[in-house]
């Protein structure tokens, strides 16, 4: 489905453009950039065709609503109310009257149109710098009509990239564990959804316990832990075909799986006789390697993006701490030295930071530290939260949070949350049911 996705650039970025509007994403942004997202214009013939195929009467407006919502949740932009727009969408896309747009305090303007051509959806859009009165980005691409929501995400990614100088994270999906039922008999299913919560789909039926799904950074494969036949084992799942297979032939529990950055290996823990060590399995030649060899618990391994190092969780000092080693298991070094326990280390896709869960004095924190353990920064504190996963651009973390129950053991819930690396813009991520163990995909189109 994603392979038939073509992007044609009709206009390249103007070579002599110097960004007049710029959004700094390295700090908490207390003044989000006011941006006007004009509905994408659509001719009557195209509108009718899309209505027939997609059962959707105005995808022009709906795509622009997706863009608006994305920009808003990023915390960096403030989409303006459409009621105040003076110019019609089709005219604005040809030549905006900049005075009108600056009157409503818009600093950036997004316009565009959608067409139905050869059974395909063709979209073009433009980003305008209102104060400078010029176009700063223009793109067009064609896709199958059913991909219409992705069109909104791709537009957002391009706008975000043009204005912040960094890749976006909107044309992505989240895989997670959907939860229901009482805490003592929780039913858990693998589920997948678009980054904005749309297109939610369950991938397993809930007959067996499933935990910790993680994306392959290079494909639509997922690795996760399943209690199929009451044998906790690491599995691979192809989310396009639904094919599943157990990873390796281990005489005991395998858990805590992740892919290597090139997607060719699985790294995981294998527990035997009360001791958990870290192993890798090459998915091509099936060769298994033992990476750690220590009588303590070694788990939650995560590769650096260049594949040269692994961070992991071990209690070899007596308590859970974070360690870094070379990917062959040598040069093991403890990096967490603050007060409290540290778990779930996960290496940033940018390579410079490790996100973690910290437990201290009965509170759980999501935090980040440099890869040598310096510069520890706690982003959020709560009764219970863990398992951060990075957005592909390394600017946002998604994690899950559980509530405390009352004296009768009632009131339990588990939800997904996201927070910017800056510690600002903490948000509930909507899911149809309770949710945990989120993992963020790479950008689907690149």
């Amino acid at each position: 489905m994603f392979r038939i996705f073509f992007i044609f650039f009709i206009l390249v970025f103007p070579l002599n453009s110097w960004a007049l509007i710029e959004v700094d994403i390295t700090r908490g942004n207390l003044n989000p950039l006011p941006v006007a997202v004009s509905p994408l214009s659509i001719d009557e013939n195209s509108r009718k065709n899309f209505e027939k195929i997609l059962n959707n009467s105005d995808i022009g407006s709906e795509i622009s609503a997706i863009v608006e919502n994305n920009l808003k949740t990023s915390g960096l932009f403030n989409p303006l109310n459409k009621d105040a727009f003076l110019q019609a969408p089709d005219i604005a896309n040809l030549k905006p009257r900049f005075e009108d747009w600056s009157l409503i305090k818009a600093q950036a303007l997004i316009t565009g149109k959608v067409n139905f051509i050869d059974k395909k959806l063709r979209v073009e859009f433009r980003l305008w710098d209102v104060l400078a009165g010029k176009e700063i980005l223009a793109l067009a691409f064609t896709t199958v009509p059913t991909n219409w929501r992705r069109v909104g995400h791709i537009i957002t990614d391009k706008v975000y990239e043009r204005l912040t100088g960094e890749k976006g994270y909107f044309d992505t999906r989240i895989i997670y564990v959907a939860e229901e039922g009482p805490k003592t008999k929780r039913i858990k299913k693998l589920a997948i959804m678009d980054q904005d919560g749309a297109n939610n789909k369950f991938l397993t039926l809930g007959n067996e316990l499933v935990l910790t799904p993680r994306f392959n950074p290079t494909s639509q494969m997922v690795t996760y832990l399943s209690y199929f036949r009451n044998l906790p084992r690491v599995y691979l799942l192809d989310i396009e075909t639904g094919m599943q297979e157990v990873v390796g032939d281990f005489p005991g529990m395998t858990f805590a799986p992740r892919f290597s950055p090139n997607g060719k290996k699985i790294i995981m823990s294998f527990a035997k006789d009360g001791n958990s060590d870290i192993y890798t399995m090459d998915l091509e030649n099936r060769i298994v390697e033992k990476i750690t060899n220590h009588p303590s618990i070694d788990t939650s391994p995560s590769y650096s993006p260049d594949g040269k190092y692994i961070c992991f969780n071990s209690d070899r000092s007596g308590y859970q701490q974070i360690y870094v080693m070379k990917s062959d298991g040598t040069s093991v070094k403890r990096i967490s030295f603050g007060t409290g326990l540290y778990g779930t280390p996960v290496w940033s896709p940018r390579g410079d930071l490790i996100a973690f869960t910290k437990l201290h004095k009965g509170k759980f924190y999501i935090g980040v530290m440099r890869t040598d353990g310096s510069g520890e920064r706690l982003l959020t504190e709560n009764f219970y939260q863990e398992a951060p996963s990075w957005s592909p651009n390394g600017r946002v973390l998604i994690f899950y949070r559980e509530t405390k129950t009352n004296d009768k053991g009632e009131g339990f819930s588990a939800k997904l949350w996201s927070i910017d690396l800056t510690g600002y813009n903490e948000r509930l991520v909507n899911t149809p049911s309770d949710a945990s163990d989120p993992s963020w995909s790479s950008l689907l189109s690149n």
Partner: protein
Amino acid sequence: MKLNKILKNTFLVVLACLALSACATQKKTGQMQGDVYTGSDTVEYLASGVPDRVFFATNESVLTTASRETLRKQAAWLRKNSKVTIVLEGHADERGTREYNLALGERRANSAKDYLMTYGISSNRISVLSYGKERPVDSGSNPLAWSKNRRSVTVKAN
């Protein structure tokens, strides 16, 4: 002035009594020594007088004196019923990260397994399964509930 002081002292004494009696009742009903569960609310029995589970301190997999006694009873029962095979299900409380707790549950079940083996139970009659924090018996978010959930349960497999 003096009356005031007497009243104040009486008040303190009463308060101390209340506090002490509160402690005393807590010890009686229940249920924890240090942070290890010692009650029997959740305990089931493999046979009369043979409890099915043992409890652990936070982050620990060391068997307490009471746990060893329970496991010796289980070993005696297993020797008498030599056809029975068992699964040791190791569990953790909710105050830990999921993956570490899976490893911790496995470690707890294995300390029970090791002890049963020293009392003559063959390892091929025992399998081990960790649930981490996935299957609490008590859904409370308090120290007593957590103490009940830190456990290794011996389950008949056949």
